[in-house]
Structure formats: C-alpha cells, structure tokens
C-alpha cells in the first residue's frame, strides 16, 4: 500500500507541474510585440526608420516604380528576347496589363500600403507614446510627409491623371488610421486634398533643413516643399507648383545645380533634396534599380535606351548626360548608366536613389510658368535656360527661345533628358495628355506586340489596374477601362 501512496504523490506532483498555463505563452525573439512599440517614441522612431526601408524596397522606389515609368515611355526598351531579359516589369513595357494580371503592379500596391500602415501606426500612436515632445514633432512631420508622398505615387500610378477628368476621377482608398478598414475609393479630388493636407501639415511640423552631408536621406522641410511642387504640377495647380518650386530654389540657389564638369551622379550630390540611402541594410543586388540598366559586373542590363533617347541626348554640345551612355548587352552604346555602383564595393545596385532633385524645381517653375503661372513664358524661359546652361558647353546654340506649344515641348524634352530613370517617364506623357508613340523599328524582337507600340494618353494601360487580388479580397471597385 505504501507503493500506492507514494505513486499517488508522485503522480500528483507531476500533474501539478504540467498544469502551468504559462507554458503556453511563447513569444518570438526576432520580432517585437505591438505593446512595446506603440507606447514608446523611441520605438516609433525605429518604425519610421523601418518605413524608409520599406519605401526603398525593390517593389516600390527600389525598382518597380522607376523602371515601370521608364519602360512605358519612349526612351527605354527591353533588350531583344534573345538576350534573355528577366521578366520584371516586362508586362508594363508590353502594355499587357489587364484586370487579372498586372505583374509587379500588384507588388507596388501592397508595398505602398505596407509603408502607409507603418506611417498610420506612427501618426495614430505618437501622441500618447512616452518620449520627448520635440522628437515627437519631428517624427510626426516626417511621417505625414512620407504618407503624402506614398499616396501621391499611388495616385499617379493607379488613378487616371488629373487632366483626364479632374477631381471627379476615381481616386484611392484613403486609409489614414491603423485599425480602420477602408476599401471604398475616394474621388481623385479627395485623394489630392489628402496628399496636400499631409504635406502641408508636415511642413508646419518640420524644422528648417540642416543641409548636413547625408541629411537628405530623410524627408526634410525642403524635401516636402519639392514634393509638394510636384504634386501641384500633377494637379495642374500652376500657381502653387511655381510657388513651392521657387521656395526650394530660393533655399538652395543656382550654384547648387551641377554643371557640365561637375555632373556626377554620386550620393548626396549638391542637387539632392530627398534621396533614398541604399547601404548593406537595404541593398537589392540584381533586383535593385541600377542593375536593371547596367550590364557590368553581372548586372541585368535588360533595359537600354532607344535610338530616340540617344538622339535626344546628343542634341546639345558637351551634354554631360550623354556621357552616361555605355556599352549594353546587345553590344551597342545604349546602356544609360545613371546609377553607378559605389567604387568602394557593396555589390550591384549599390547607389542611392534620388527622389527629388533641385533641377526638377527649375523644370517645374518653367512648366508652371509656361502654363500661365507667375511671370508666364518669360519666367519659364529664364528658369529653363538656367538649367540648360548647366548642361551644355555651347549654351548660345541651345538656348530656348520658343514660345507656346514649342516651349512646352522643349520643357518636356528637357525633363526626359534630365530626369530619365528617376520615376517620370510615362507619367510625364499622360499627365500632359500626350500619346506615347514608339517607332516600330526601335522595338523589333523585343517581345512587344506591334499593336501596343502606340498608346493614347487616356489608354487604361497607362495606369495600373487595382490588383485582382485586392478586388477579389475586398471587392474594391476596379478602375474604369479595366
């Protein structure tokens, strides 16, 4: 019987030991719980840092948006099929998007909202988090500015341009808080209002720039102004576009424009207003931006300049931008290598990514003024020529004197030369209502269907459809035309 008693005792102990429910709380150690992050300003600051990382991923500004903009325009093309290009963004080049399939258009959508959700968490929780008030203000300012930027990139990619039907076009679902579910699309007007509101609020919160080397890897007051100028340009609010662009120029001054001899696309160059830092933490290698255009060192080099663009670059004498052309995969001199791998290593696509530069401000002033803002065409010519003077050794021969439609065309051309591969390409056509005309001879054997070479500005395929997965999951309204 003693055995029996002892056994019962042992049994009891064993059962009691096993009963602890604490055993069932297992938490990972490589991730941080929600509670810990949302109550601390320090951690929310890390969340902001992480959001810059998300913005720099290949599915957003790290590749897709810029590459898409380039291959849908007139100036770049895929190499011929026999040179085995990767299929990244090929669907955009071929204008084969449809409601069921939009290639990396789906990734761009998700990645943008991933960034927006991080920003919403910051914006919603900052007020009650523990920490320094000045730091809170700085974080909130950057977060709002970034949210404006991401919504703007979404608006110009997934909604028809302002010129098509103005404020009444279909806009975006405006998810402004972390816990609400928004699947209703706002009007384009409401979308732009929100973008502008975010950016304006950001301006009110941010301190003046320090202009320390490397400081433009974060969104600064001047950076927000520059983006705002761009937003107004897309919204065809010429006065405001001109106003903010000029404010930026006033802050920086003409001497910050790179010149013929100083035109080097290095990190944090003098024109930098906002750029993405790409270092080992967020480098993308062959999936990154630079490797798409640069064939050297094992890069993909799948995207090369068209003859049209090469001709455009050779218009000015001594244009430093023409010097960026190198040998490409097909053996011609059509690789446009704006993004150069850092000389001190770091692999492929080891370069910062410019988001907005000073030269664009000159072009915005020129365009806004040519459309009647500020001092009109004379002001337009003055700003445009200021830039051109920095891009040729023979200014007098290339000085712009045209007016009217011809002036508009010169500005557009200058944008193609100056801002190539910086996320403008196709957007610059459609926001101005210009068709995309791609010569047959420049696209032979590149896999594109001949009937998809000429695209009217209002064609649905100039913008991305709402991804099928989104429509399927949330019933979100598809864009008209898809």
């Amino acid at each position: 019987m003693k055995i029996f008693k002892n056994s019962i005792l042992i049994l009891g102990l064993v059962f009691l030991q096993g009963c602890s429910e604490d055993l069932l709380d297992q938490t990972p150690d490589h991730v941080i719980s929600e509670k810990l992050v949302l109550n601390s300003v320090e951690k929310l600051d890390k969340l902001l840092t992480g959001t810059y990382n998300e913005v720099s991923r290949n599915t957003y500004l790290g590749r897709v948006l810029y590459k898409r903009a380039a291959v849908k325009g007139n100036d770049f093309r895929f190499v011929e099929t026999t040179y085995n290009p990767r299929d990244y963004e090929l669907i955009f080049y071929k204008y084969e998007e449809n409601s069921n399939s939009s290639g990396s258009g789906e990734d761009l959508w998700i990645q943008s909202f991933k960034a927006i959700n991080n920003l919403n968490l910051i914006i919603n929780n900052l007020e009650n988090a523990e920490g320094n008030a000045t730091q809170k203000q700085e974080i909130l300012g950057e977060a709002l500015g970034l949210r404006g930027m991401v919504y703007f990139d979404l608006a110009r990619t997934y909604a028809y341009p302002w010129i098509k039907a103005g404020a009444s076009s279909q806009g975006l679902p405006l998810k402004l808080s972390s816990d609400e579910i928004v699947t209703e699309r706002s009007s384009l007007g409401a979308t732009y209002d929100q973008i502008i509101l975010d950016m304006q609020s950001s301006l009110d919160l941010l301190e003046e720039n320090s202009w320390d080397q490397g400081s433009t890897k974060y969104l600064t007051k001047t950076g927000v102004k520059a983006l705002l100028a761009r937003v107004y340009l897309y919204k065809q609010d010429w006065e405001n576009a001109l106003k903010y662009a000029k404010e930026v120029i006033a802050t920086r001054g003409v001497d910050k424009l790179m010149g013929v001899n100083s035109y080097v696309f290095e990190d944090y160059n003098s024109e930098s207003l906002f750029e993405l830092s790409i270092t080992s933490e967020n480098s993308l290698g062959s999936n990154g931006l630079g490797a798409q255009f640069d064939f050297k060192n094992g890069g993909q080099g799948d995207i090369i300049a068209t003859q049209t663009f090469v001709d455009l670059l050779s218009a000015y004498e001594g244009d430093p931008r023409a010097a960026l052309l190198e040998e490409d995969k097909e053996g011609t001199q059509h690789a446009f290598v704006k993004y150069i791998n850092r000389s001190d290593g770091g692999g492929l696509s080891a370069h910062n990514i410019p988001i907005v530069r000073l030269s664009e401000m000159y072009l915005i002033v020129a365009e806004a003024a040519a459309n009647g803002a500020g001092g009109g065409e004379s002001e337009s010519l003055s700003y445009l020529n200021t830039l051109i003077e920095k891009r040729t050794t023979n200014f007098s021969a290339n000085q712009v004197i045209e007016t009217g439609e011809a002036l508009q065309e010169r500005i557009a051309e200058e944008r193609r030369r100056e801002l190539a591969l910086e996320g403008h390409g196709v957007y610059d056509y459609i926001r101005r209502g210009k068709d995309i005309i791609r010569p047959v001879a420049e696209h032979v054997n590149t896999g594109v269907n001949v009937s998809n070479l000429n695209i009217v500005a209002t064609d649905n395929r100039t913008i991305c459809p709402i991804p099928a997965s989104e429509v399927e999951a949330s019933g979100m309204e598809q864009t008209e035309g898809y």
Partner: protein
Amino acid sequence: MKNKLQTILTLFLVLLVQMVIAQEKTISGTVMDQNGIPMIGVNVIIKDAQKGTQTDFDGIYSIKANVGDVLNFSYIGKNDVSRTIGTDDVIDVKMEESAESLDEVMIVAYGSSNKRSFTGAAETVKSEALTRGATASFETALQGKVSGINISTSGQPGGKSNVQIRGIGSISGNTQPLYVLDGVVINSNSNLRAGDDMVGTTGYNPLSTINSEDIKSITVLKDAAASSLYGSRAANGVIIITTKDGKKGETEITLGVETGWSQNLTEEKLINNEQFKDLWIEGQVNQYIQNTENAEFTRVYGDNGLYSNYENQAKSDYEGIYGTTNANSNWLDAIYQNGLIRKYNLSARGGSEKTSFFISGNYLDQTGTIIETGLKRYSGRVNLENQAKNWLKLGVNLSVAKSERDAANFDGSYAGGLNPLYMARVLPPAAPIYNPEGFGGFANLPNEIEKNANPIGVLKVGEYKNTEFRVRGDAYAEIQIVDPLSFKTTFGIDQQTIDETLYDNKEFGAGGGIWNGVLNRVKSEVFQYTVTNLLNYNNDFGKHGFDILLGQESQVSKMNSINVYGYDVLDSELLSASSIGSLWSHSGYAENYSLLSYFSQVAYNFDQKYYLSTSFRRDGSSRFGKDSRWGTFWSLSGAWVATEEDFLNIDGLDYLKFRGSYGTNGNLPPQYYAALAFFETDGKGYGGESGLSYGQLQNPDLSWELSKNFNIGMDVNLFSELDLTINYFHKKTEDLLLNVPVSSTTGFMTQLQNFGEMINKGWEFEIGYKPVSTEDFSWRTSANLTILDNKITKLKNDIVPTYSSRYGQNPLIIKQGESIYSFYLRDYAGVDPSNGYAQYHILENGERTGELTTDAQKAGFGIFGDALQDFQGGFFNQLLYKDFTLDFLFTFGGGGKVYDRTAFKRDDDGFAPQFTNTVAQLNPWNPNNIDATVPIRINGNPTFSNDVSTRNLYNSDYLKLKNIKLSYNLPPLWNTIKGGNIYVQGDNLFLLTELDGYDPEAVVDGVNFFQVPTAKTVLLGLQLQF
C-alpha cells in the same frame, strides 16, 4: 539357405521397425522463420495431449512423442504449423509470418491493443516490408502496402516525401501525418526554419535520420477511434514507429550489407543541336515577319527573295549567339549519373532474465542520379529495458544519427539560375557545357542566360551541403501500483542540429560577376522535450472487461538559428563564415512552441464480443490565438465480433467483425506565431540605423482545423486463408487553416484564418489470400485498393490563379465544390490551319459556346479534372519455393490528371527561344506545313500558346513495378553463422503512364514542373545471423 536367411532377416527388420514405431521416442529439430533465422520460444505442443515444450536460444526443441502424434508449432505473428510424427527423429520447421493474426500485439496510441479488440481503423506494417525500399527513410516503403495512404517521393538521397493518409486534409496548413517514435511525438517538421528559402537545399526529409533497420513495426492510425487520442495534431492521421527491443537469451547478431545502382526512371526526350538550330531560325524568321511584315506569313513565305532575306538575317542572329559550329551538348547526360548505394548494418539483441537490449549501428552512403548529390548517414541505437523491481520497469530508447547531404536547390516549383536541375533541362544543345579555358573547365552560357548559371559549373564548383546531427530518445519508468493499476512516465527528447553551407561559386550563376562568390552559412538547433504521464487500469469483472487510461502530456520545442549571408568569398575551398568578405545579412532568431494536454480513454468489452471505446483529449497550444487557446477532441467507437455469436456458426466463416467510429481531430497552424501581431526587425534598417516594420496582423481567434471523422468497417476471415477488410470513411474538415485574402490596404495580402470546409471520403479494401501452401511451395497474395474523393465545400473566395510572365498561369484553382487540385485551363482546339495559331474553344462559365478563337485572352477558362487519383492501390505476391523467395509489388492508380507545366518553359512555341524543346515541338506550322499539330513557332511568341490549356493536360493513370525481390536462404555455416539470406532487389523498375518524364507517384498536386526524377534502383544484399 541364403534365401531363408534373407527372409528371416527381413522379417526381423520389419519387426524391429514396427517395434520402434510403437515406441515413444525423442523428436528434435530447429524452428526457423522464413528467412532461416532460428526462432526462440516457439510453443511445440503434442496435439490432444497435455504436453509441450518451447524452442531454446538456438531455435532447437526436443520432445518425447509417439509415432502418429501430431506436433503443433505456434508463435505469435506466425502461421501455426502441424507435423505428424513418422520415422524421422528430426523435424525441422519453417514458420511463416501470418498475414493476419487477431491476437497479435498492435501498438496504438499510448498503449497497445490487438486486432480483435481494436475498434478503430489502423494497420500495422512489419520491419520486413519497411526495409525494402532503396531510400534512406522508411515511410516510402508504405506506398502500395497500406490502403488509404499515398506517398509521393523521388527516391533521391534523403529526398523529401509527401505522405497523405486519407486524402489532402488542408489547404494552407500541414498535410503530413503526426509521427510518434516509441511513444514520443517527434519533430517531423520538414521546414528547417533556418536556411534561406531561395538558395537553400530543398526537399529535406526529417525522417531520413531514422534507420529503417531499427524499426520493428509501424502502425498507421487512420480513423478517429485510432487517432483522436493525439487531439490537435492528429487530423492528418498518425504513424506510430516502434523500434526493435531486446529479448531473453543468447545474443543474436545480424549483419546486413547492401550495394546497388540507380538510374532515372523517366527522362524526357529533347531535341538535338541541328533540330534546335532549325527551330530557332524558323522562329526568328517568323518573329521578323510578325514585327515588320504585319504577321503576313503566307505572303512572305511565298516571296522567295523576301523570305531568304529574313532567313539570312535569322541565321546570322543565330550564329551571333551560338557560333557557326554545333556544340551538340547533352545537358541531361552531363547532370545525370548512375547513383550508387552502399549500406551496412550491424545489430545485436539479447538479454538476461531482468534486462534486455537491442543495439545497432548503420552506415549508409548513397549518391543520387544527379551529379554532386548524395547522402551519408551514420546512425546508432541502444534500446534497454530492465525489470528493476517486481513493481518497477525502467527503460531507455536512444538513437543518434548524423547525416551529410549534398543537394542543391532542385525545387520543382522554382525556375531560374539557382536551380541547376531546371537549367540543365532547359538549356539548348547549342550551348556548350565545357570549355577547357573556362573557369573550372566549364563554359559560359550564350548571352549569359540567368547570370551565366551553367548548371554543371554551379554544381561542381559550388557547394550545397546540409549536415544534421540528431538525437532522439526517451526514458521511461513503469510502476505497477496495485495489480490492475499501473503508472508510466516517459521523458522524451528530440535534438536536431543543422549546419548548412550554401555556396554560389564565383563564376556561374548567382555568385558570379561583381559578387565574387556568395556564401550562406546557417546553424540551427531544435530541442524538443516531451513529458508523458499515463495511468492505466485494466481489469475484468466476469465477462465485463475494462481498460481505462488517464494521461497528461506537455511538449516544448525551442529552436534557434544563426544565419550569415554574404559575398566576396575568399576562396572556394574555404567556406567558413570568416571567408565572407562583405555581409549581406546576418540574422538569427528563436522560435518556440508548446503544447499542454490532458486525455483519457475508456474501453469496455463484454465477453470479447461487444466492444465500446471512448477517448477524450484537451489540448492547449501556444500556436493558437489568445482567445481560443484550448481545444477538445473526442471519439466514440464500437465493434461487434459477430463470429462469437452462437447463431453465427457457419463453416468457413472463421472471423467476422463490424466496426464503427466517429470523432474529432485537429491540425495545428504551421507557423508558430501566426496569431500574434508583431514588428519585424530583420532587414529593416535604413541609413545606418536599425528599424522596425509591421510584420503581421494579429488573429486572436486563430485555432486548430477541426476534422470530423466517420468510419465504418468490417474484418472477415474465411477458411483461415482469406482475409478481407473493408472501410468506408468520411472526413469533414472544418475551420480550415487558410491564407484568406485580405485587402492589401492592411499592408498584407493574406491572413491565416480558420475558414472553409473540405470533405475527403472513400472506401478502402484489403484482401489477403494464400492459394497454395505446401511444405516446399507456397504462394501468398494480397491487394489493396483505395477509392478517394476530395471536395472543397466552403471557401471565402475561389483562389483563382493569375498569370506571371516567368511561370505562366498556375494551372490549379481552389474553388468551392471542386477537388483541391482542380485544373483550370483553356480548352485547346488544335492548330488553326489558316494562320498556325493555337486555337481554343471559347468557354463561358466553363461551358463551350461553340465558337473558336486564337486569342488566348478571350478563350476563357474551365475546370478539366483534378490531380487526385480516383482509385489507387497495390498488388503484392510472394512465392516461396524451398529456400527461394520471390516477391513483387505493383502499384497502380487511375482517374487523375497531370498538367505538364514544363511546356511553359520548354515546349513554348518559341516564347523563350533561348531554351531547348522536347521532340514534341518538331514540325511546327508554317505556310508550307499547314497540317501541323504544333502551332507556329515565333521567337518571343506573344500568343500565350504556351500558357495553360488542355493542350498540356494528360491522364495520370499508371501501373508501376514498385518493388521486386528474389532471395535465397543460406544454410547455417561453420557453427558461427546461424543462417541468413542473399538477395537481389529492384525498385521502380518500370512505369506505364501517358506523360513522358513524369512519375505520378512523385508529385502530389499533379503539376509536372522539373521535379527531381524518380530513381530506379537495383540492390544486391546479404544478411547473416550469428
């Protein structure tokens, strides 16, 4: 006189003989099993007399009996043997395994039972069957042997297998059964949770570190009555592995040696260099015509001058890439080889009155049919049991194994330079393999396809190695508290240490160019421990029998890993982490889970005639959401042995039992933290600072998948020689773990939720028969058949596939009302003879409208069958003649379909002209060949003719000679060798099926896409007993 004497002598002799016969004499002999191994403890009884004995350590018996008496030999698990005593004093007996033994011990959940009293659906497989495969792990040998179980495997060294019991149980969750080793649930996670998804070696098999020679038996638990005691993890069935134990008596030593060769069972037929060149040029000409002549092929082909312009242009394009001489490369020959297998096994078992032991050591060295692949395994086992006190039994089972596996990323779902097998199967014969001047002697690829990923160079110069060190074991104590009440406590461990080296070399593929080599070093460790306490009460009150079990269990698993990934590798021979020049990432993390359970089982029987059993288990799991942490699972089952009834006394009907069960099981979420909201830190830094990003939406309601199982069955034995088992099952899985699409505005595309329902139902038949059984010759045959139907009955949204230019559209759709692997395709209608384009029947809502189109975008889609076989089974025969045994197993299936997705990459009508084709692409349509069955070939083909359509859909009905073995029993030798056998065996020797290069038993979802080919193996073996 002489004659007289002779007569007398003869008479005397006859008398003498008669006298001897009438006398009681001593009969002796040796009892052996069918392999010629002496059997200890066989009961030898004189029929109709109360007299008997047992065989000794050497299988020898001796008994006094009279001539004319009948000796009856019996042993559990063997067929009884009877011999009438004649003139011989020596009667040697060979005992054969009985096909069905009703009273044989059968290991089941947390205990044992026997076939007679067990109320569930379960099946036991013995070691002989398990060691039959040429693969490293045992489970692959179950295919075709057990009904209701389907195993897909490639037969490559240490290759992954996919085991399904009674259909596919889940869409996004785990579909593999739970494995229990000597009573302890082992970690059978095939996800290493350590390496990088993209570059990691794939197809890791967690069971390959278990030596199949150590296994005594396997029980497959199929229905709720059998498996519900395992609660939240049992929805996909349970496989219980029992290792060999010791036994009293002289130590018995077994030595086994096997050696063999393997080749691919199937290989596709590819075009040669000249054919490639012709197709390429034709495609290029057509591309020019398409792009510059408004696709007016007939006009241009009719205009000789114009045509030869383009042809010359195309030829010069070709020569610009591939040169003027043919390389005549055979990439398949270069990447495939003859595999070799060597296996050595030494084991000993024995014991004294109180202690028994089993120890074994095993070495396996296998090279695969792909170059630079192989597996080396060293393993050892010690099983000990000691009767410490009359009320206490102590024991330990411990195994240690080390495996070294070479296998690159041969993942059959990824197509690109990092997958050398894929590359070798798509690269054209015009691309040279070798170049004496090239790096390591290998050639660069034309146009540096996929970053110059010459697959032979990738494999030969790179390194993809995975070593695993695994310790599994348990220690237990069994206490007899008072007679019918006993207590058993078990402590089990499972420790896994993984070390992975993945090196993309400096020249070919991902490590080439500026990277100067890419190296990924991973170390990870998983430690799992389990504590099980069982209280057992087993007593009979007259005709009422009770068996009651109360149990408690907790299991904790802790994993941690360190992963270093970088480029600029110092030297191809120095692959330590310090050889990495520049880091891409360094990461490391821990992942843990825990389970806490209480359970009980009550079994009652009346007079061994009526059986009733219930089980109950409550599981709490860390993987569940905080609002649904505990789940309850139960079962109720009964059985009636009808032949025990007096009214059912029919001659020849020896045994008839009816069974029925109903109960619930669960399936855990595969991810450990799927319920939690959290922020990620890994790889979220920016501008020199560390960062965070929202990593997962929380789901506090996340819980188990619930499967509701119904089973009804019967077991019959007729004339002692025909066994029949029939089961009908219906398994409904609710609250499916499903990656439910959510609005991307949340920042995520899907969330793991419990949503959806699926039904697997069907029939299982097993029949065993022994047509002939004489002393010298016997023939045993058995067959099994499973009829299975899978249907998704509830889903939030159909999961409709989308197109990607890298893979085309996924041919599978997940749709309510359809089977899980249903094919969603265009309806191909052959080649339009007027323009050469592929044409389709236009489908609207899956129905033909009667119109045809050549525009793939307008063709529409419909469902055309599914991948799961409607019926599947095995057919086994064993023939014994004297000391020879021949047996063979055929497996078969029918009613399923296979989609050949390789067509998108290879038989693509020129879509990707840099890749080769199979011979099916020869003779495409052109204006001079308008009756062609292959559409027009255009380089960079924009018509989607290579995308999903019924053009690439095949039947996957098959018949396979899974296994054949001829063995000869060796006689005892030199007093030391007690016996043994020598054999030759073949695995996967032939296969009949419609699609070339495809093994229906290697792929679960019916999508053929450059999977690792099945190995066909021939083995020679020798086994000796000492």
